[in-house]
């Protein structure tokens, strides 16, 4: 039995999660953590990218040779040096949450859809390589776009519009003006 939630129940609970996170910690956001994960990998290869400097008075500052990572007093560098922080743990926990929902929430993925979603195979074919290439390119674009925009669906659209932020409305407009025609053209069946 596939027990997923209807839109009203789902909307209420999703709204409660966004509200509770903002009330207790801060508004939810995900895409920043991709930069932190990248820095965990690439900054170890090029140490100049993530510098942790203890000053004479004992305080620690974070700097980077990269202008993006150096932003806001090196907050990305700091997060990558201390990955046991709220935002990074949050994204790992999302994986666990998805796993729990599928395993114990009676919402398993159909076996024939574990690699390729039905809407993709019906329209663009059952080629494994094609779907994985498409997903990779799509992933590249959503994160490049989200970083340029300063947030993604969760940070801009959900948390942003929850706070009535103008930026949330601008992001949503940019997304749907492009994503709707692309989906209509690519996925006709």
């Amino acid at each position, binding site marked *: 039995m596939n027990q997923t939630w209807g839109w009203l129940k789902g909307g209420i609970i999703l709204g409660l999660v966004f*509200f509770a996170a903002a009330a207790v910690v801060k508004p939810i956001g995900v895409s920043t953590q991709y930069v932190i994960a990248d820095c965990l990998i690439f900054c170890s290869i090029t140490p100049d990218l993530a510098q942790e400097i203890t000053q004479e008075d004992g305080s620690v500052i974070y700097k980077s040779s990269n202008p993006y990572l150096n932003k806001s007093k090196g907050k990305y560098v700091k997060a990558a040096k201390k990955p046991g922080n709220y935002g990074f743990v949050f994204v790992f926990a999302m*994986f666990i949450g998805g796993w729990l*929902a599928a395993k114990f929430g009676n919402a398993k993925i159909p076996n024939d859809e574990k690699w390729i979603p039905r809407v993709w195979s019906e329209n663009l074919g059952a080629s494994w390589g094609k779907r994985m290439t498409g997903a990779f390119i799509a*992933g590249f674009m959503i994160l*490049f*776009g989200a970083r340029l*925009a300063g947030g993604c669906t969760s940070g801009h659209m959900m948390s942003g519009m929850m706070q*009535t932020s103008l930026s949330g409305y601008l*992001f949503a407009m940019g997304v749907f003006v492009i994503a709707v025609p692309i989906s209509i053209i690519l996925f006709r069946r």
Partner: protein
Amino acid sequence: MLKQILLGLLFGGAFGFVLHKVQATDPNKIIGFLRLTDMHLAKVILFAIGFSSLLLFVGLAIGFIPASHIHVKASYIGVIMGGAIFGVGFGLGGYCPGTTVAAWGAGRKDAIFMILGGLLGAWAFVLSYGWLLNNMSWLFDSVISINETNKVTLAETGNPKNPALFSMPGIIVTGVIAIIFMAAAFLLPDQIRSASTEN
């Protein structure tokens, strides 16, 4: 440190669980929404935004939530352009940066490739940021000029960093917006157009 980790586990875990239960982790549902053949997720999202917004501004109004918890992002040209680039990948892949992580947890393996592409895309932006700043600085121009940072909201939040476009009590502005969003969730049909059945 431990408190941060526990809160991250709690809220991240709840978020991932809920995303899967509302089927936001399902590319069939995301693409169904984007091609307007299955508006389930549109209704979920509209209701969630309206409902959470109402709770948040009631919380701010009665002092239950400090205004310092408001974190609003700046409104610059790159928000729209970045959204458009995001839109291409969203319409093609059917996952967003967060839902793809929960989808992987739930057992969708193509989500792994979406995440790998995402890691490369985020890093490509990190590496091109300096160039973009020098050569395409218009991307970072504000769409509005109210103060230095232009982290603008529609409704008054009480946070001095975030000027509001409507100078009336925040709860009134939010109340109107929340009612529109939640009503839209009810009124939106289950599908706006049908998928082609031709071969």
